[in-house]
């Protein structure tokens, strides 16, 4: 798909209009309803908005995203619109305010087209836990799109919008991006305000873009990043001009983790292809070296202890009283809470709340929760140390291409391991991007992941642009 720059040019030259573009996207979304990417399309509203933006553009006004058509994951609040985190417990809930990211993209002229399906409460790696049913990978309908931002990614993949905003707690943007051949970005922790994002693991969650190309991803990041009075963890670090994608032309240093590339769970073809990309990088004068990282097998366990603990606390607000689903059964207050939550939450969410509750009980707090926080520090320090002597850590985004429906649903641990290469960035807080790296002989796309220095977004985008030219299928 053309990037926003080209599209804007087409609108300016009269070749197309924002209204016509929205009409096309809506038509494609309706035609491909079976993919189940959208929970709700805001058709009429987005067309009215498009007409306004067309006028603004004609008057020479219009912001940095004028006419960009964007889908939201169903966990990002937009005032006056439903947001349900793909859960029965929030069916019918309408947000009273807008998230900071929504306010920022609207201020720059974006058109929001609808909200997208995801794993329930963003807990999943295949979009199979949604109360609205699974999303299908547009490339092969028997395969998952990845998760949890599966709907967002398929909406971009299948040409139903220019871009989407998802959230990434352990890989929920990058993993589906890899499975669907799109660009997905997890910002540095604190780069983007979390105000108005339905919380899952607050020390992990970041909102980020899913796009068809690097430029659009960088542009969206320029708009949504920055300090915010409503989120004290939003960083005051300067937001740079990420869309200046000029290559540095300087030789760069890449580290790859031996434990990752030689992991027995890694698909053989992805291993070979990754090493082929490393050779191409070397041929261009870059350095690619293996580094020691002894924590690979501990990433996912540390991630699950910490995120489930945070989730069990964050999700205590869903009680069937002030908003959300409420049981029909009669009983006392405690039973109202228990019945509403048990009927409203799906299986995976309950599983994680239980694990989180377990690791926070006084008997096990030190053995699990504090232990995982200590391991998190070791992981962060080790990652930081690697990035002191290298510009990027490079790995495949996922150990395999998109798997088939039902393949991993019976074994929670097997599903959790789908995040093995992506969780490191969430544990350590570093920014990471997944870019399309080609197509496997099974016909499915795969992604290569670059992790950069803290708040090194600019360098990450400019090199990603260069890399995408090298690996483009």
């Amino acid at each position, binding site marked *: 798909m053309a990037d926003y720059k080209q599209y804007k040019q087409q609108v300016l030259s009269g070749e197309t209009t924002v209204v016509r573009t929205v009409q096309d996207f809506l038509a494609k979304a309706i035609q491909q309803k079976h993919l189940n990417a959208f929970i709700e399309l805001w058709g009429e509203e987005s067309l009215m908005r498009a007409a306004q933006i067309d006028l603004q553009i004609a008057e020479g006004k219009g912001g940095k995203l004028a006419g960009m058509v964007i889908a939201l994951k169903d966990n990002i609040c937009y005032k006056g619109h439903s947001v349900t985190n793909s859960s029965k417990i929030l069916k*019918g*809930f*309408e947000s*009273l*305010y807008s998230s900071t990211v929504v306010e920022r993209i609207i201020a720059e002229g974006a058109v929001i087209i609808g909200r997208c399906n995801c794993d329930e409460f963003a807990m999943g790696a295949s979009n199979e836990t949604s109360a609205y049913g699974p999303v299908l990978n547009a490339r092969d309908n028997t395969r998952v799109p990845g998760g949890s931002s599966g709907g967002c990614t398929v909406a971009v993949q299948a040409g139903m919008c220019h871009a989407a905003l998802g959230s990434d707690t352990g890989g929920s943007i990058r993993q589906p991006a890899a499975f669907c051949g799109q660009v997905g970005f997890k910002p540095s*922790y*604190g780069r983007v305000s979390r105000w108005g994002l339905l919380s899952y693991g607050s*020390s*992990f969650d970041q909102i980020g873009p899913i796009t068809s190309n690097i430029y659009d991803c960088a542009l969206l990041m320029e708009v949504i990043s920055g300090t915010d*009075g409503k989120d*004290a*963890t*939003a*960083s005051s670090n300067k937001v740079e001009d990420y869309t200046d994608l000029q290559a540095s032309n300087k030789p760069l240093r890449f580290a790859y983790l031996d434990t990752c590339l030689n992991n027995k769970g890694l698909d053989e073809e992805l291993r070979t292809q990754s090493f082929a990309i490393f050779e191409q990088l070397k041929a261009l004068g870059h350095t690619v070296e293996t580094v020691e990282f002894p*924590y690979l*097998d*501990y990433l*996912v*366990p540390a991630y*699950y*202890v910490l995120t489930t603990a945070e989730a*069990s606390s964050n999700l*205590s607000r869903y*009680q*069937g*009283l*002030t*908003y*959300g689903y*409420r049981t029909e059964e009669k*009983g*006392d*207050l405690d039973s*109202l809470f*228990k*019945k509403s*939550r*048990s009927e409203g*939450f799906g299986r995976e969410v*309950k*599983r994680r*709340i*239980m*694990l989180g*509750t*377990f*690791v926070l009980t006084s008997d096990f707090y030190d053995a*699990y929760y*504090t*232990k*995982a*926080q*200590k*391991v*998190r*520090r*070791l992981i962060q320090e080790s990652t930081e140390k690697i990035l002191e002597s290298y510009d990027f850590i490079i790995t495949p985004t996922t150990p395999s291409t998109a798997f088939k429906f039902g393949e991993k649903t019976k074994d*929670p*641990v097997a599903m959790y391991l789908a995040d093995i290469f992506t969780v490191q960035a969430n544990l350590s*807080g570093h920014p990471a991007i997944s870019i399309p790296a080609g197509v496997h002989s099974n016909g499915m796309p795969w992604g290569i992941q670059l992790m950069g220095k803290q708040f090194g977004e600019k360098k990450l985008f400019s090199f990603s642009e260069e890399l995408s030219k090298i690996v483009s299928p």
Partner: protein
Amino acid sequence: MEITNDAIDKLAHLARLEFNGADKESIKQDLTQITAFCEKLNEIDTTGVEPLIYMSTETNILRDDIIVEEITHAEALKNAPKKDSDYFRVPKFLDK
């Protein structure tokens, strides 16, 4: 570690959840499997390591304490599953 039925009941109460019959058996098995998976962390020596608690690099982010009406009374009640004109409705929980 082995998770008992009693442990499931205790945790479920703390989490305000209920598990019965087959669901209880299945959550018990899942928790046993997942905690065993997480116990792998014990292989790492963390003697003298401080737990990493805050991810934010920002310190002392303060704002002026100004009174703003973020949402109205009517808005606050809007999404309530049961309400009257002024309040959220709850089951009776005090005996006379």
